[in-house]
């Protein structure tokens, strides 16, 4: 199994969710996160005092899928989250050793 984590723009969340659902992905977890990459932060000003805000708010989606599906999920996310501007985010793919469905105790791909 693979875990696909994608850090994307807030306003792309709905597009990405719909695109993944169309591909038959029927579960995901979403978190509000902050971070920075090439986009860097921005400055804010309060009564003349400037603050550099390095951590930019983003949304992180986590999807766990069977190995065979992983590439399709990555492609789908890239297609639906892309704007072409700096700050579109990144996708991380990693191996996942185990999944358990708490209600039934099923494990592995049966639990997805």
């Amino acid at each position, binding site marked *: 199994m693979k875990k696909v984590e994608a850090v994307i723009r807030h306003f792309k969340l709905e597009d990405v969710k719909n695109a993944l659902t169309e591909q038959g992905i029927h579960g995901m977890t979403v978190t509000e996160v902050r971070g920075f990459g090439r986009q860097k932060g921005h400055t804010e000003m*309060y009564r003349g005092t400037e603050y550099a805000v390095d951590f930019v708010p983003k949304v992180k989606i986590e999807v766990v899928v069977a190995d065979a599906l992983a590439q399709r999920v990555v492609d789908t996310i890239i297609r639906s989250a892309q704007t072409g501007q700096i700050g579109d985010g990144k996708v991380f793919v990693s191996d996942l050793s185990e999944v358990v469905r708490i209600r039934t105790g099923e494990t592995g791909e049966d639990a997805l």
Partner: protein
Amino acid sequence: MGPPPEIAAQEAAEAKPVDFNRGDHAWMLVSCALVLLMTGPGLAMFYGGLVRKKNVLSVMMQCIYLMAIMTLIWAIYGYSLAFGPGPDNFLGELIGDGSYLFMQNVQTYIDSKQGFVVPMAGDIPRLTHMLFQGMFFIITPALIVGAFAERMKFKAMVLFMVIWGTVVYCPLAHWVWGGGLLQAGESPWPILGALDFAGGTVVHISSGISALVCAVLIGKRLGYGSEPMPPHNLTYTCIGACLLWFGWFGFNAGSALAADGIAASAFAATHFSAAAGAFAWATIEWTLRGKPTVLGACSGAVAGLVCITPAAGHVHMMPAVLMGLLAGIFCYCACTTLKNRFGYDDSLDVFGIHGVGGTLGAILTGVFATREVWDIHNGQPLGLIEGGTQMIPQILAVLITWGYAIVCTYIILKLLDAVVGLRVEQQEEIQGLDLSQHGEEGYIFL
């Protein structure tokens, strides 16, 4: 045909003590409530939004606790010290007396000769006058809270405000409004007779300059200048600023103590100055920094309101607009350039807005005051523009207020620092005052 005799007799009995102007009185009761609204929720939200989220409750608590404790002091002795007539000698110019202790001669009573008595203050019941002035006694110390926000011990804050209210506010209010040495038309020395319509000196200069002394003596917040300390919720601040603007109509127009033409003029001048202040501050930011900010517009509105306060019932409308514009410019410079130059941590810019705006307003009152709004000196010209000499008393009143507030605040703080300590422990400051002083958190998300 009139009402039956028994009802007519009853009406006469009820009407007898209520021989004051009901229109004026209704406006004054509303004004009392408006001025209270300025502290809570107005100032509490304005300040609450500006601090970091670990300290939001602490400034709100300071505001609401001051609403409670200053009210109690006012009822027991504060009003009497400020507005008691005082002895008929020099001491009476400086301070009130015990005439109104515990609300005696303020509340209604039954006299063996006169029967049912409603003590009056001018055209309104003295109770209403006491209430209205009592709301000023709440907001003035509450304004200072912004200077030492995020680091002062709650116990020290309470003791400071009780003493400050007693030895700074009450005498000042007596000098300027209670028939004391700074009141135009009352002072035995006309050169000291300043115009302060709604509290430029008593409220804004006194709190603003005391705030600066507090900020300097208590010292900077941990990490000031090295860690970012942006406001945690500017939506609160914006709502708070709008509530201040709204309540200020009671503060300024209510200070006419009647629903008359002067109140109308003060109301309009207040509104125009606030608008001009918000416009000026936002425009400076837009020009110099590229973007107009919400906090800038809010700060500018408050600066305009502060500046017009002493002048509200004395100036025409275009001078009011000009005063608001100047307040926006001066206070912007004070909160940015001046503060950075000297490096003091006046956390929420109490001095920059109230001290600077109040001083500017008191002096500009000497420029723009006109007898066409309120002919307070029976035909004598007032401001510089109409050829009067009011500027001299205005400047003297500013200097006296600055000096008195600085000296008293310095002594009170030094005493309290020796006895209870002013500042929370370093660990408590890092943890935040909400938890360390009050055992609560502003935001709990499950």
